[in-house]
């Protein structure tokens, strides 16, 4: 019979010696988050991880690999299977001065925890007039493109960008993944941290530094004709599109938003003032997605600079479709270029 695991003994900080990232290394995005978590846990003993299967298994994407061995079950907590409780106990831990990092196994499983996020995590600081801080990070692998079953490919970020009191981050590469998970954990405000799961394996150089503040958007490719705005998995698709367009004589400025709430409008506005044309692309459904919000705001702020109506290239207003149809739902290089054509008045 199975030996039942009990939590009463709580093995402490023993096991292996920590080996943090100390020099530039080529890492996959998943591994970069792992290193960021490790550094955050070394920096602050109040950082604890909670989630389903994050211990011995290291999470279904292995993002927490080896952290149980290094930091012990007091700090890397395999929880019972209940998202509301994962978030709700994190609230209690935060109340006691901890900095909990929750892993939600897949995007579609965040909803049982939605009430605790929206009515508690987001509101505590406001409710208590600043007396109680909620330095909670909620990590969410998100987005499609991996041929997965239902609820495993969703892009729920807009629910959170509409929720006052939360910060929302989406990373697109290994370096940002490393730097921004550390910044998110260090933030005294709650942060939803979205990880584009189909890019977990993509490698990049990682410098063990915090880098630019997480609320800053980054121009990942400068250009003059069109501003192409995106985040998460589509950043690399957008860069490919810019490259392809360049060959056809269109100069696209690609912006990686990084922070979805607040949006770094300084960078976006400056770009649109220059190009006069804006395309926003994301995987989430169009209606109520982040694209509409950004377009409305940019239209308000840059109306006289706009040469054409901003264009959206997004997932359709459908539940995430079955794997064999996802290539039709997800914006790809061609659909982005089609959007660029539209904003350029070529179609």
């Amino acid at each position: 019979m199975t030996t039942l695991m009990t939590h009463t003994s709580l093995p402490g900080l023993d096991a292996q010696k920590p080996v943090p990232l100390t020099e530039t290394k080529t890492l996959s995005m998943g591994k970069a988050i792992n290193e960021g978590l490790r550094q955050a846990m070394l920096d602050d003993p109040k950082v604890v991880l909670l989630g389903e299967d994050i211990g011995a298994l290291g999470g279904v994407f292995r993002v927490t690999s080896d952290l149980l061995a290094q930091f012990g079950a007091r700090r890397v907590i395999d929880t019972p299977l209940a998202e509301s409780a994962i978030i709700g106990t994190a609230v209690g831990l935060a109340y006691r001065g901890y900095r909990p990092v929750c892993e939600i196994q897949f995007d579609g499983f965040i909803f049982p925890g939605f009430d605790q996020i929206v009515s508690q995590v987001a509101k505590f600081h406001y409710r208590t007039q600043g007396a109680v801080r909620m330095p909670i990070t909620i990590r969410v692998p998100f987005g499609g493109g991996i041929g997965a079953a239902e609820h495993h490919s969703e892009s729920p970020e807009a629910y959170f960008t509409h929720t006052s009191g939360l910060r929302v981050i989406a990373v697109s590469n290994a370096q940002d993944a490393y730097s921004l998970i550390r910044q998110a954990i260090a933030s005294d405000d709650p942060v939803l941290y979205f990880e584009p799961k189909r890019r977990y394996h993509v490698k990049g150089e990682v410098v063990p530094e915090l880098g630019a503040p997480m609320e800053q958007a980054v121009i990942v490719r400068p250009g003059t004709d069109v501003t192409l705005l995106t985040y998460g998995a589509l950043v690399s698709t957008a860069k490919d599109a810019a490259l392809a367009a360049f060959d056809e004589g269109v100069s696209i400025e690609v912006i990686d938003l990084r922070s979805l709430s607040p949006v770094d409008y300084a960078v976006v506005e400056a770009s649109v003032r220059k190009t006069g044309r804006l395309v926003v692309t994301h995987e989430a459904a169009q209606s109520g997605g982040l694209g509409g919000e950004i377009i409305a705001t940019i239209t308000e702020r840059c109306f006289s600079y706009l040469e054409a109506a901003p264009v959206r290239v997004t997932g359709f207003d459908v539940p995430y479709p079955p794997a064999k149809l996802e290539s039709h739902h997800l914006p790809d290089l061609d659909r982005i270029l089609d959007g660029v054509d539209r904003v350029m008045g070529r179609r």
Partner: protein
Amino acid sequence: MIDFSPPLVQLLSIDGERMPRPDFDSWVDDLDGTALLALYRDMLVVRRIDTEATALQRQGELGLWPPLLGQEAAQVGSARALRSDDFIFPSYRENAVAYCRGVNLTDIVKVWRGNAQSGWDPYTVNMATPNIIIGAQTLHATGWALGAQRDEIDAVAITYFGDGATSQGDVNEAMVFAASFQAPVVFFCQNNQWAISEPVGVQAHRNIADRAPGFGIPSLRIDGNDVIAVMAATRIALDRARTGGGPTFIEAVTYRMGPHTTADDPTRYRDPAELAEWKTRDPLLRLHRLLTSLGEITPEVEAATQAIADAAAAELRAGCIGMPDPEPLSVFDHVYSTPNATLERQRADYAGYLTSFGTQSNGTV
């Protein structure tokens, strides 16, 4: 050995007689006349405050008030069992607990006057402010207890909730987590027989205290109108938690003698005979009887106690009415702990808008 099986534990009869019960008595043998009188004073004061707050609501000074009338013993008995470093996660009805915790009376009504979403700094009294989402706070208590466990301190989290709350997923998940991690947390359920208009039978076909053992959490079912039994049970549960014994569930069987809130009208759903019957079990009445038989209640004591209660009510009223309105632009404060460009722009725009009026918006809606 404590018997954790369900029969109702009573140490003080309706007639005010101390009912011996060996397994519980040792937990309350410090309760001499003076101590009992202090509990009585607390209960009288909180009832007086409760009445005053209801009156303030009727007079338009409070937007709403959730009376605790009838639940004084459950709240005072448990609150007075706590150590100052134990942490409380209440629902919205634990005004007596807040009083016992030393929360300023004005701060108690601040939230019901609509001046703020919470009335005090939780860390100054180790008590969270009211949580309105039913059951949510039970998870916070469990999380806090996980923290205490990691900090290797022997402080305990206690969470208050109602009979209705036991139906919520969160409360059940809190029991799962508390049991799994053997967290030092006390689940204190005031079964006041009603969740707004729904009798407890809608929520549960068995005693509420029967639920927890299936989760691996021992439970006690006590007469919640018996302040001595409440204190004994809470001390037992706290001691278990402090000494690594894990969570305990307490069902305090009591009665909501008033409306759900001042916005409620119980005559629509409740038999007056039920209220009449519960009046005979009034928690103050029976302690008064015991104190009288102990010779602790004299006319002087009676008058002095009433004076304290009246003074508290006067303080509450003055504090409530004298509370300054919040500044208009404070609507933008504390959404985040660090500046947020989008929000700062909204604040600046609105400040400009107010200035353009040379006055505040008249708020016509």
